[in-house]
């Protein structure tokens, strides 16, 4: 531990000071109710650095034009920048080909695309799809819809009281009927990390493909889809400091080639007649209509920003914040953390004894502290833990120890008001 701390100090000498990092994010200097904003809702969406805001602004003010359409200069420029962003995403997650990178509206859009398209091609009556008990609704409901359409069944990997999947139970669920496994990289509600690499390996030993929901994974460490050997990897731009309205669907070429398009329209076609339409090549086959190219280009800027900070620096900062916050919170009488395990992202879900999560959230809000309360779009997790919801503190590298101190003082205030 001491060595780790020493190592952190050493690394810090070469990295951007936190005060400088915070200056990159205009919104972080905001005041709410006359109090400095303490933004602990990064699990819902992250704030945007100036370079991302400027990039989107540049698209709209200097070369806005529909992509892949015109022969004119602006359209060429917009198309070129959009495709450059695709290449940046490919490199960021170490995918083999840009053809394997499909832009969507977000994680939800990506999962729905696979649920429909993969479902049409490969899923039939009495087949099974496996998800975990930790999934966000976005990685449950699209599969339920596929199951309903196809007469297939949804199977669920159970978890223990700490919010960790029971791997042996997962192995028991895998069978000849299993057509796909869809799991999250980390729980958005509790922060616990799933052993996705092992999950994939086990599925692949039976030739079952795996979709990884990276909505809570992409922003916390290196994602290497090649090393993971994921068949599909999906994430949202806005959770990794990029704009909203843009998401990524990575799919292995062999799947994307065989899967039918899920939306018809412009750009996804090769040749259209009333008798028969042929489809465009990958990845355009899955990009019908005008795509959100300003956001895609903005996402490219966000990825460059993250790379410039350095993964190791981000990881160490987030780990340090997580440990500090966990230790401070655990000192509070009557506070219980759900999913308090070693292997987790910088999310802490908790409840105060006899105090409703909304009362906690309301008071914290008035003190300038933004947290999320409720089920976090993961009701099955809450049902499993026998609670109605939690207060969720989700941190990232631009948060500080001082902000955690404000949170702690806020919780003490809550206790004094409602005890």
């Amino acid at each position, binding site marked *: 531990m001491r060595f780790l701390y020493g190592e952190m100090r050493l690394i810090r000498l070469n990295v951007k000071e936190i005060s400088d990092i915070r200056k990159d994010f205009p919104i972080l200097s905001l005041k709410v*109710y006359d109090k400095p904003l303490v933004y602990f809702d990064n699990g819902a969406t992250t704030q945007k650095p100036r370079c991302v805001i400027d990039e989107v602004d540049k698209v709209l003010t200097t070369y806005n034009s529909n992509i892949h359409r015109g022969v004119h200069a602006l359209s060429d420029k917009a198309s070129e920048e959009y495709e450059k962003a695709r290449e940046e995403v490919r490199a960021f997650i170490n995918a083999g080909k840009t053809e394997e990178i499909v832009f969507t509206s977000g994680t939800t859009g990506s999962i729905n695309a696979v649920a429909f398209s993969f479902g049409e091609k490969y899923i039939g009556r009495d087949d099974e799809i496996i998800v975990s008990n930790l999934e966000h609704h976005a990685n449950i409901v699209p599969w339920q819809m596929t199951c309903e359409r196809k007469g297939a069944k949804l199977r669920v990997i159970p978890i223990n009281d700490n919010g960790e999947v029971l791997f042996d139970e997962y192995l028991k669920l895998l069978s000849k009927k299993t057509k796909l496994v869809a799991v999250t990289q980390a729980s958005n509600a509790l922060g616990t990390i799933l052993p996705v690499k092992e999950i994939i390996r086990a599925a692949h030993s039976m030739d079952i493909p795996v979709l990884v929901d990276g909505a809570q994974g992409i922003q916390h460490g290196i994602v290497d889809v090649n090393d993971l050997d994921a068949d599909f990897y999906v994430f949202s731009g806005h959770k990794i400091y990029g704009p909203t309205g843009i998401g990524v669907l990575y799919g292995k070429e062999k799947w994307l080639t065989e899967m039918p398009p899920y939306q018809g329209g412009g750009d996804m076609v090769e040749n259209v007649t009333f008798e028969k339409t042929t489809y465009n090549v990958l990845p355009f086959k899955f990009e019908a209509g005008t795509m959100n190219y300003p956001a895609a280009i903005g996402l490219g800027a966000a990825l460059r920003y993250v790379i410039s900070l350095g993964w190791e620096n981000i990881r160490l900062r987030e780990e340090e914040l997580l440990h500090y916050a966990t230790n401070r919170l655990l000192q509070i009488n009557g506070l219980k953390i759900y999913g308090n395990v070693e292997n987790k992202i910088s999310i802490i879900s908790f409840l105060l004894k006899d*105090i*409703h*999560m*909304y*009362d906690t*959230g*309301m*008071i914290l*809000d*008035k003190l300038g502290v933004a947290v999320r*309360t*409720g089920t976090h779009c993961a009701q099955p997790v809450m049902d499993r833990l026998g609670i*109605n*919801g939690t207060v969720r503190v989700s941190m990232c590298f631009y948060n500080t120890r001082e902000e955690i101190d404000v949170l702690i003082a806020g919780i003490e*205030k809550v206790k004094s*008001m*409602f005890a």
Partner: protein
Amino acid sequence: MTIDEVQDSIVEEFSVFDDWMDKYNLLIDYGKDLKVIDPKFKIKDFLIEGCQSKVWLHPEFEGGKITFTADSDAIITRGIVALLIRVLSDRTPAEIISADLYFIDKIGLRQNLSPTRSNGLLSMVRQIKLYAMAYQATSKK
């Protein structure tokens, strides 16, 4: 007191405080005064949809007037419910249906409660008005 007179007095009580913590403390106090619903009515039939904290609301129609009892599992919400009941309970259906609830805006509750909570508040008001409409319809028969 008329509905508007009660609303005006609530607005006045809140106007004493500038600080939100004081306003919340006042809400918490109102919650303590709430005439709590009979536990047998704390069931799904009387649960209001749209509230992320649970709210149960039970109407009773007697002598041409509706009396409401309620409860919530969150204390701030219970305070808000208590305010609504203070304004709208023990009224005729016609009074409730035509009530213009301006006090919610005037004491800053709508802007200062989160959208989800605000939706809950609106659901409560809608449910109260629906009960009033239903009783009005049945009493006309």
